[in-house]
């Protein structure tokens, strides 16, 4: 039977490659996604350069209150925090955007350089969103795969648990957890996480979205479990564990990858919301959300303080969403994943 001449298996290249390479090629051809990725890289580089900016450009420590400092602008010494001299003399207003190297975007209510804080805040926002995404996807995969693959009582318990968390409005869940943990910190066995550690928001944000990812994963695993190729493996007498590792997980992994940018985007917004409600990142650490929150008290006099981080969030999240669309199209064009 070897005499049958075989045409090349697929159109195009002679040595086509696996699903991953195909997705990569598709992604690389997506201009919007590439543009978004470039923007994201620039943002990451910028926030990584925060110490350089603080030290060499703005020359301030963005975590130090500088309430009585004066700076020189146009040859004049100007106080960073200016006391009102008119009328009854009520109120103290921080310096506004100077558009110069020092206090480029002005100062916040502690007299700190907003531009420098914006960069440092971005670090935390991205770090938290990134780690929370990793954590969330890990937990969701664990729960979803366990429930879907092992079925039975395990599935029943896990699914019910997910149902409960699902019906618990996310923000309310996040707030409850935040309040508990911020008041008391967290002790799991020998590990103690201080209440102002970044680990807390990471943990909280990582946990609250687990049902939203675990459910589709569980569904996917259930479908995979019934899929013909898994049945084929069962029929071949392949051990269950091996089927899980070789047949199920690789297919789930692309779903997880598709979730990454979308969850990142969602987590950045969630983090900022929690920080905005002052139950996210704790001072003196900053994140874009906390800067918005601090800026809220200056909204009428110095709107730049909360506008700037807001714009940073919009740009980052927008880029992540565009990239997310690209990744989804590349991996799984028909999927309608929508974490919220």
């Amino acid at each position: 039977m070897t005499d049958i001449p075989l045409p090349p298996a697929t159109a195009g290249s002679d040595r086509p490659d696996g699903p991953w390479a195909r997705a990569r090629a598709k992604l690389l051809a997506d201009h919007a996604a590439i543009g978004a990725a470039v923007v994201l890289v620039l943002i990451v580089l910028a926030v990584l350069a925060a110490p350089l900016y603080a030290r060499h450009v703005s020359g301030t420590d963005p975590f130090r209150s500088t309430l009585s400092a004066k700076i020189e602008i146009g040859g004049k010494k100007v106080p960073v925090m200016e006391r009102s001299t008119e009328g009854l003399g009520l109120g103290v207003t921080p310096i506004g955007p100077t558009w110069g190297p020092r206090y480029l975007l002005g100062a916040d209510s502690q007299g700190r350089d907003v531009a420098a804080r914006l960069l440092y805040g971005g670090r935390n926002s991205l770090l938290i969103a990134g780690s929370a995404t990793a954590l969330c996807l890990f937990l969701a995969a664990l729960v979803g795969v366990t429930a879907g693959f092992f079925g039975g009582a395990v599935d029943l318990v896990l699914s019910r648990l997910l149902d409960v968390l699902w019906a618990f409005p996310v923000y309310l869940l996040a707030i409850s957890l935040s309040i508990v943990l911020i008041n008391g910190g967290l002790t799991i066995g020998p590990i103690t996480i201080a209440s102002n550690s970044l680990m807390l928001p990471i943990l909280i944000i990582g946990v609250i979205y687990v049902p939203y990812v675990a459910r589709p994963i569980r569904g996917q695993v259930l479908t995979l479990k019934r899929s013909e190729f898994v049945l084929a493996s069962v029929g071949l007498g392949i051990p269950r564990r091996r089927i899980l590792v070789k047949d199920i997980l690789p297919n789930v992994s692309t779903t997880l990858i598709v979730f990454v940018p979308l969850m990142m985007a969602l987590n950045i917004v969630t983090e900022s919301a929690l920080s905005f409600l002052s139950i996210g990142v704790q001072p003196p650490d900053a994140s874009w959300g906390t800067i918005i929150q601090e800026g809220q008290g200056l909204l009428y006099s110095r709107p730049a303080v909360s506008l700037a981080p807001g714009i940073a969030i919009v740009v980052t999240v927008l880029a992540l969403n565009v990239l997310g669309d690209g990744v989804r199209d590349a991996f799984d064009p028909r999927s309608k994943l929508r974490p919220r």
Partner: protein
Amino acid sequence: DRAADMAAHRGGTLRLVTVAAEGTIDPHINYTLKNWQIYQLAYDGLVNFSRVAGPGAFKLVPSLAEEIPTPTDGGKTWTFKIRKGVKFSNGKDLTPDDVVASLRRIFKVSGPTAGTFYNGIVGADACLSAPADCKLEGVTADAAAGTVTIALTAPDSEFLYKLAVPHAAILPADAPAKDVGTDPIPGTGAYMIQSYDPNQRMKLVRNPYFKEWSEAAQPDGFVDEIDYDFGLTEEAAITAIQNGQADWLFDPPPADRLNELGTTYAAQVHVNPLMAFWYAPMNTNLAPFNDARVRQAVNYAIDRSAIVDLFGGPVLAQPVCQILPPNMPGHEPVCQYTTDPGSEWSGPDMDKAKALVEESGTAGQEVTIVTEDTAVSKAIGTYLQTVLGDLGYKAAVKPISSNIQFTYIQNTNNKVQMSISQWYQDYPQPSNFLNILLSCASFTPGADASINISGYCNKDLDARMKAALELAVTDPEASYAEWTKIDQAFMDAAPMAPLFTPKRVDFVSSRVGNYMFSSQFYMILANVWVK
């Protein structure tokens, strides 16, 4: 003159606003300034603080008692003659029995100050442990004579003040012996609380049975109705007042509106000093603050003018480095933790502070400052963190929900090293600051109610405070002098860092007239008119 004003300005509705309601309407339980201000309109004690502006506001005047009696039995027995012809807003006459029942009710409803203000009454101990069948033997009525006699276990120079606060308001004898929640209890004041919905509005109307008996104790009001709306944010409320849609806001205006108010609306803004202070308690039982030198160093290092800026600038706050606030009897302006010690704070002394820290050898230790998650508290905490950092500590700030922070920082189990807190007077006596905040009795390890946050218990000073209290019965002036010294002595040990005395900003709408401010209960609502 008042009668002419009454003729010209009587009537109308006063629209007050605040961010949130403050819980139960029960005057024997509610312990908030917001409601105490309202209770002045609706309830009376045997004695009242007089309703006048300025220092006179701390003067006690007889209200439901016909006159302020002189105690007998070495200051242990007080006999009040109850005023005749006073009616509750439900039309019932006030009787001595109402007074007895009201004092018992303090215990029956487990009023927050039952064990601290009224525990000196004979029989109070039994009432505290078994409130349901509280007899309070020390309080007896004589219906025929129309008197009520109160027997104390020991003389108490501040007893009249305690009777003047709303926790000792006289309510009808048939008032339920439990927290009434949102159902208003009839009172004897010029107004009555008609309805109360904590999510919407409290409404006060004139008490139909009210007849003015003493302008100083319970003046007849100008406005016919008072609507107190809940739920607007400060920003929104300020805008509403600017637009004439509301008349007055209880809460302090947001920081970024102050400038606007001080310039464009200067005529509608009233700034008044308060008898209160913001301070940073330092836990004298935890490192590094178990070393007095560290606590002194902190006191030296704090730039109080910077903190004043965080509160809105020098017009709104005044730096202090002592515990007794200005205007408090016994207050002698003095500041030892400053560049040039004297009567006033002039600037931080960083060198001295650093030297003290070095001496103590505690630099490098970790310190967490627990603040409320309000803008000002958090800002102060953040600032203190910088100060502690400059002193060589690894400092962190931990803001927690305002509703929890106050109990949280009191409990020693939470191991709070440093925190930000405030204290406002219940009544104008030095003991209300010094004795409550720093006596050994106020320190209960492991409890959420342990108001001596620093956990500072100095047997010596404790004894001196006791003595001063006893002295006050006979010689108030001498006792005030002693309190001055005790204040000093406490500040030598520096269990806390006093920061500033706040001032109150009242922003009223343009139609509000006859604004008057009492340091005890703030804007005197009965005197305000809107026409």
